[in-house]
Each structure stands twice: as structure tokens, then as C-alpha cells.
């Protein structure tokens, strides 16, 4: 029987297998940030264990950083201390850190791919559930808890039971105005938030083959929102072209050798998956969420379902929506374009292309938060900042920002935010804030109109 892409990468990293137990999986790259690493550093220090492979760790500050005035000292004492501790820990242990203000600083899942740290066939972990993003390169990448961060510090390995395999295939041509974000929100709305639990997912079909790397990252990023530890897309010419020439990518002959290896990774024709789903690209429309988990999504032309159960009703009550109603026409006062899901250059190009020549509605506060310093520089270089400025949008500095509202970028109580981030959980963007997940195009259109519109009516 043939092997899946996942099998090939996993099997190549198995150090040892415990009888009737987990396997020891070798980790190529370990990404860390300020929030989930300090307790792991402490643990190793208390137990007097050295960091095993510091040169395979890369650190960034992103979750807890301000998105304005980054050159000034951080006002919030706890946030400042957390960043200081990251700097001290990295310095003490010889770990590369792209701290606040560094030209490579950014959200961990934006920074690593754009620097060529992320490469096909690797195993990558980070104490962050959206580590699944890196699967876009044909990489086994997944989020871990802090105890596991400590394990990787100590041994560059993890004890894991091999997950089951799942494949989601989407074939056909996407309609005008349907973006990668809509594709993944559509998939999660169809299969639910726990369909992937216990599985590693592969996305296959011409929709993903025709997607840019930025689009593939958006899709793989949200694998965790259907419960899957990670999602992968087979590496191809689009992948190789993206990786080539990046700072930490292999160069010259070494690159060609790697490409030859990477070409052996795609799933064999006769490989069998434990679970498969098939969808038709033509069925997908711009998507919006109406509830408090990412599976509670509808197409723009659809109405909120008439489901009756306590959890569903609790969600609608929180969102102040009614069963059977449309979201079109709902007034919106906050728009957030950013997060590890949608803060890459392509996302800002899409937004700028729509916004050009228009103006933000007066009732809307619109935050644009680039995923990294490099994306920020590119926004300015390509003239997109001028478009955003003219239209009344606020381009802020890079970080996780209002996706999890750990810094000061919070949506006020009771307000709706059309957001390109990944989670619409209760209070995720601020206590009492109501999140509606959408694509950068839908977010830009909402900011211009001051309410939710059916974007397809403008495009067709």
C-alpha cells in the first residue's frame, strides 16, 4: 500500500517506538514566542537540564506586543516583563530572537515562512495551535503545550502517537470573490469543529493546487478549527518557487537536491486515508460566521440555521442574532484585517484593490495589522499604505493584535467585529466582543459600507 504525504514525513522522523506506546518524533525546527515559553525555560533551569539544540530554535515576540509606538517602552508592566524574559532566556541560551522592532519580527507563522525557515518535509512545532499554518509547505507542523515545549528544549523530540489520516478534496473553479479563507470556513461549516480531532489532514484537489502559498497558509492555518492537529498540502512548483532565494532557504546545488527530495513527498496514488471528504468548488460562496465557534458559518446568501439546542442558543444569544435571519445589512463598527490567518502581503493587496478610490464608512474603526515587519515594509513599498491612508484605514505595526486581544487592541463590549482572524469564541477579541469571521475582501467591503453586504452583487 502506498504512503500519504503525512506518512512519508512522519516515518522519516521516527527515532524510536515504545512497545504499546507512543513514538519518539524528531523535531527539525522549534518556533517559540513570549507567552508559552517562559514556564518551559523555568522548568529546564529548575531541573538543571541544558537546551539540547539551540540552533534549531527561532524566537519572535508577537502575541503580547503593542501595534503602535513599538519604539517606545511598553506601558503594561506584565507585558513588558514577559518580553524581557523572552529576550533574557534567548540570550542566555544562544537562541536566535527577532524581538520587537527587529526587521524580521512578526507573527511566528508569518515570519518563519517568509524567511525560508519553513521548508517542505520538515517537522515544525510551536507552543501555538496555529502552527498548522506551516503545513502549506508539505511540512508536519502542529501546536504543542508548554510541557512539550520543555520536552523539545530538552531533547529536540516529542513522544507522540501517530494520528489518523484525513483528506479533504476540493475540485472545480472558485467563483468570483471566493478566497482561500472562504474555502476553509466552508469546509469547517460542513464538517464541524471536531471532525478532524485525532487526525492530520491533507488538502487535495485543483483548488489547492491553483492556490498561492499565502492562500495555502490561510487554509492550513485553520485546520485546528476543525480539530485537526495539522493540515498539509503537497509541495509543488508553487512551493519551490516560494522557498527559493529566501534568507534561510537552501542555496544552489543544495536547493536542487532538496527539490529532488521534496518531489518524492506527495501522497502515492494507492495510499488509503482513514477518512475522506469531497467538496465542489462551485458550491462555495463568500462565508461569514454567525456564532461562537468557527464551524458556525454560512454562505453570504444563506440564513442562520433554525437549530434547537442549548449550546446553539447560547451562541446566538451571545451574538444577539436570531434564527433564520440573514447577516446582510447588519451594521458593523469594527473591522480587523490581520492575524496569522490573513496578514500576508496578498491579503493587503486584495483589501487595497477593493478599497482604492473608496472611503471607509464613518461609523467604522478599521485596523490593518501586518503579519510582520517585512509585510509592513512591502505594504509601504507597493504603495498600498497610501491607498489605506486615503481611505481612512489605520495601518498599525505587526503582531497578533486583536485576534486574541492580549495587548490593548480590544473590541469593546457588545460590538461586532468583521475579522479576518481564526476564532470567534466568546470574548476572544475583548470581553463581550462579537466576532464575525470573514475573508479580507469581505472585511474591506464591510469597512467601506459600514455594514455587511453581499460582495458578489458588486463583483458580478
Amino acid at each position, binding site marked *: 500500500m502506498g504512503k500519504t504525504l503525512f506518512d512519508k514525513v512522519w516515518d522519516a522522523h521516527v527515532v524510536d517506538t515504545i512497545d504499546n506506546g507512543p513514538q519518539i518524533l524528531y523535531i527539525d525546527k522549534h518556533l517559540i514566542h513570549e507567552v508559552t515559553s517562559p514556564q518551559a525555560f*523555568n*522548568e529546564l533551569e529548575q531541573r538543571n537540564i541544558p537546551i539540547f539544540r539551540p540552533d534549531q530554535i527561532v524566537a519572535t515576540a508577537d502575541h503580547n506586543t503593542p501595534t503602535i509606538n513599538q519604539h517606545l517602552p511598553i506601558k503594561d508592566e506584565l507585558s513588558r516583563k514577559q518580553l524581557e524574559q523572552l529576550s533574557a532566556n534567548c540570550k542566555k541560551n544562544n537562541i536566535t530572537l527577532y524581538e520587537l522592532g527587529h526587521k524580521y519580527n512578526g507573527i511566528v507563522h508569518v515570519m518563519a515562512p517568509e524567511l525560508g525557515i519553513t521548508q517542505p518535509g520538515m517537522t515544525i512545532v510551536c507552543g501555538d495551535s496555529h502552527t498548522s499554518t506551516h503545513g502549506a509547505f508539505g511540512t508536519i507542523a502542529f501546536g504543542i503545550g508548554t510541557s*512539550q515545549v520543555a520536552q523539545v528544549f530538552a*531533547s529536540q*523530540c516529542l513522544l507522540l502517537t501517530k494520528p489518523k489520516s484525513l483528506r479533504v478534496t476540493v475540485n472545480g473553479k472558485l467563483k468570483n470573490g471566493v478566497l482561500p479563507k472562504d474555502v476553509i470556513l466552508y469546509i469547517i461549516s460542513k464538517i464541524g469543529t*471536531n471532525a478532524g480531532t485525532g487526525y492530520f489532514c491533507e488538502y487535495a484537489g485543483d483548488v489547492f493546487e491553483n492556490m498561492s502559498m499565502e492562500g495555502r497558509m490561510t487554509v492550513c492555518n485553520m485546520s485546528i478549527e476543525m480539530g485537526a492537529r495539522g493540515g498539509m498540502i503537497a509541495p509543488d512548483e508553487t512551493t519551490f518557487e516560494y522557498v527559493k532565494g529566501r534568507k534561510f532557504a537552501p542555496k544552489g546545488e543544495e536547493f536542487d537536491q532538496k527539490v529532488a527530495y521534496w518531489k518524492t513527498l506527495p501522497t502515492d496514488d494507492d495510499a488509503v486515508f482513514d477518512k475522506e471528504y469531497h467538496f465542489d468548488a462551485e458550491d462555495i460562496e463568500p462565508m461569514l460566521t454567525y456564532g461562537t465557534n468557527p464551524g458556525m458559518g454560512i454562505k453570504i446568501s444563506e440564513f442562520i440555521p433554525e437549530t434547537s439546542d442549548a449550546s446553539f442558543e447560547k451562541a446566538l444569544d451571545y451574538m444577539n442574532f436570531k434564527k433564520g435571519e440573514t447577516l446582510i445589512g447588519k451594521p458593523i463598527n469594527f473591522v480587523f484585517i490581520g492575524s496569522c490567518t490573513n496578514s500576508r502581503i496578498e491579503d493587503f493587496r486584495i483589501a487595497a484593490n477593493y478599497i482604492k478610490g473608496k472611503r471607509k464608512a464613518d461609523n467604522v474603526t478599521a485596523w490593518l495589522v501586518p503579519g510582520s515587519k517585512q509585510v509592513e515594509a512591502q505594504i509601504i513599498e507597493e504603495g498600498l499604505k497610501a491607498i489605506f491612508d486615503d481611505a481612512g484605514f489605520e495601518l498599525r505595526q505587526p503582531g497578533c493584535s486583536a485576534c486574541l*486581544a492580549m495587548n490593548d487592541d480590544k473590541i469593546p463590549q457588545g460590538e461586532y467585529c468583521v475579522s479576518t482572524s481564526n476564532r470567534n*469564541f466568546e470574548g476572544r477579541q475583548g*470581553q463581550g466582543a462579537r466576532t464575525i469571521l470573514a475573508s479580507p475582501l469581505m472585511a474591506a467591503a464591510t469597512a467601506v459600507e459600514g455594514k455587511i453586504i453581499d460582495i458578489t452583487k458588486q463583483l458580478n
Partner: protein
Amino acid sequence: MEKFITLKATAIPLDIENVDTDQIIPARFLKATNRDGFGKNVFRDWRFQKDGSVNTNFVLNQPQFDGPILVAGDNFGCGSSREHAAWALTDYGFKVIVSSFFADIFKGNALNNGLLPVQVSPEFLKELMTTIAADPKTKITVDLEAQTIGIDGSNHSESFEIDAYKKTCMINGYDDIDYLLSKKETIEAFEKTLQAY
């Protein structure tokens, strides 16, 4: 890590599905750099109103319910990988979480902190919820060695699954680092074979 063998205690029914880790411990409380003290903020925005007053409708605030076992709805612990969720639950005093389904990362984090996730059938979960709601003094017995969970005063019980390795760790209070460090030579030998990529 604290050892876990058996527990016979009362339980708290949290009859909500898809409890995500942002509810267990909201992001604004993740700024600490140690593992202690998260319990006071567990389920913060469900336990307290925005003005700081106690939400008496929330089960953790209802005095009739008490105990180190949390019985929760399907898909418990989804969302963010923050281990702070497991730390907050253990710091609050929970030793066992019962649900019909757990999210992967949370389950691993719980096991790494001596917090036992017990997955039961949806039917048994419903029975637990109803029984505890009707009589909050009902004792639940969780036996890790036998891998069973039972309701006292009835002969209803179920067996649950746990990875054999993780079970050994829980019973003996070992953690994965001890094991991985014992394999250092094997890991170093493996690294030398990694040239292909």
C-alpha cells in the same frame, strides 16, 4: 507531577459543548511567566460579570455543586494550545475532567499536568449530568488502574481508554522529559542519519 490512582468524589456538571480554552482562561491572563495562580481566573468571564460581580447562574458559583471532578459537554478544550488552561483547572482544584470528547492538544496538556481526561459515551455523559443535577452529593468513582468510572449508589459504570504509556506516567508521577533524556544517545544517533533533508 502528582501521582493519580483512584478518586471518589462529588462532581460539578458543566453542561456546555465546545468549551474552548479561551473560556477556561482568557488571553488577558496569560501574561504570567510561571505556572501558579491561574485558578483564580478559571472560567473568569463565565464566573463574573463584566462589572466584577459574581454570575450566580454559572454552575461553579452554585454552592450545592462542589468537587474535584468537572463533567463537561462534548469537545472540551478546543481552540488555543495554551497549557495555562490545564494549569488553571488544576490550580482551581480539579483532578478529573469528564467529557464525551476532548480536543487533542488539551488532552495532552492535561495528561502532562496530572489532570485526568476521562472520555465517556454521550449516553453515560448525559446520565452523569442528570444524576449530579438531581443530587449534587452523588459520588463519582474514577479508577485509573482499572480504567473505569462509576456512579455511586447505582451499578452504572463505564470503562475508558488511556494510552498505556500515559497511564504509567500518571500512576507513577513520571513525565516525558525523564523518558526522552534517557534516550539521548538514540536521538543523537538518529540525527546523524538526517542528511536527506
